[in-house]
């Protein structure tokens, strides 16, 4: 593991702490779920294969659930599909060669448009699992749809900022 990878993992750890703070102290209403974790999962170094990324995502989700006194297993169940789709999303939006060569993911190569598309899909995938599992049939379909829509918008803004941070960290390695 090189220095940049350690830096990325440290950043992921910070993101997990930030998510804990959000979950415990930042209540934005029943319709808003602000999540940073899908973007963090996307930036897990590609040197670690999909299985390792899924395991890490599972542990991250479980840690957040456990320490935030939320629904245990909820973030884990929603993050594992994002980690499973990570390689596919990077292949699709950044490029096959990035995955094959295990290059760090930066915004330079795909550009912001593709980067935002990739983050969007990851966040949507997360919310499509998270919201129905959280409501557990107690909320109407309309409520869940509204929650997914609003949470997606809020999380996307936070995700773009976070992607910029990760991208800059990866750029430093490329330099």
């Amino acid at each position, binding site marked *: 593991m090189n220095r940049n990878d350690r830096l990325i993992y440290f950043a992921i750890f910070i993101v997990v702490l930030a998510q804990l703070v959000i979950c415990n102290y930042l209540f934005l209403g029943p319709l808003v779920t602000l999540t940073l974790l899908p973007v963090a999962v996307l930036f897990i170094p*590609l040197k670690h*294969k*999909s*299985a390792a990324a*899924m*395991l890490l995502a*599972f542990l991250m*989700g*479980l840690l957040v659930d456990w320490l935030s006194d939320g*629904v*245990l*297993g*909820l973030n*884990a*169940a929603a993050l*594992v*599909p994002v980690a*499973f789709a990570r*390689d596919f999303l990077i292949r699709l939006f950044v490029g*096959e060669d990035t*995955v*094959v*060569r*295990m290059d760090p993911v930066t915004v330079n190569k795909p550009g912001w448009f593709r980067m935002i598309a990739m983050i969007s899909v990851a966040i949507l995938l997360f919310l499509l699992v998270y919201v129905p*599992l959280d409501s*557990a*049939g*107690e909320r109407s379909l309309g409520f869940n749809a509204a929650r997914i829509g609003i949470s997606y918008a809020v999380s996307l803004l936070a995700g773009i900022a976070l992607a910029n941070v990760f991208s800059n960290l990866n750029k430093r390695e490329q330099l």
Partner: protein
Amino acid sequence: MRKRNNPITTVVSVAVFILLEAASLFILHANNEIQRSWFGTIGQFTMKVLWGGGETIRDYFRLRSCNDSLAIENFRLMQENARLNAILDRADVSGVAPNTDSRFSYTGAYIVKMSRNRQHNYLIIDKGARDGIVEGSGIITPKGVVGIVEAVSDNYSYAISLMNRDMNVSARLRREGPVGALSWNGHSNATLCEIPHHLMTELGDTVYSSGYSTIFPKDIPLGVTVDSRLKDGATWELEVKLFEDFSRLKYVTIVTNLDTAEMLNLEKEGEDEQE
């Protein structure tokens, strides 16, 4: 450098995904009452759909036995109907019905082989001597006459089909009309011959079995007249469109006249006396 599209990696990834997702859902199920209840509801719904689907498939495969039992019930009802008709026919003027049984017995059968594209077509049915079938038994359906049994083995019977140039059926035009011989015309319809010239006929008249034979009961609907022509200036020859579609035929009823031997003996005695 990673290999492109390594199948082993893909399989491992999918397996790990299923494992971790299952573990997450298990943790969710084990620690949260609302989610547990919801999973229970989803589980019940899924089982209902699966069991319902399974039941539908089982029902489909049960159709054959269901068909068999319906066919048997149908034959029993036909037999009962024939018996009651016979009682009505023989009832005296005071309206008191004698306690008598029908001349005919009915047995359901499947067609196991049938030819349709020859001039002398035949069929083989899955009932034979062990089922009480005898040579000369008739084969009918609710839509008409199918054939006559010509040979019988223990388990099967060979019959000539109505779609056979050698077969004639005594038929009546309308329920109370004239009687003639009905035979296959070699194509899709049949021809009713020997209808006297002076009797009026109309296209669309129904043709029934006459009952003037030892083989078929009377009043089995056979078809409707679709064309007529005068033959030799003496009799009408009527083209009859048959009700029965032989290409879709599967189940038939074998009808056996229980008084055949007695009637034939009587007929023979009468002929001998005349000679």
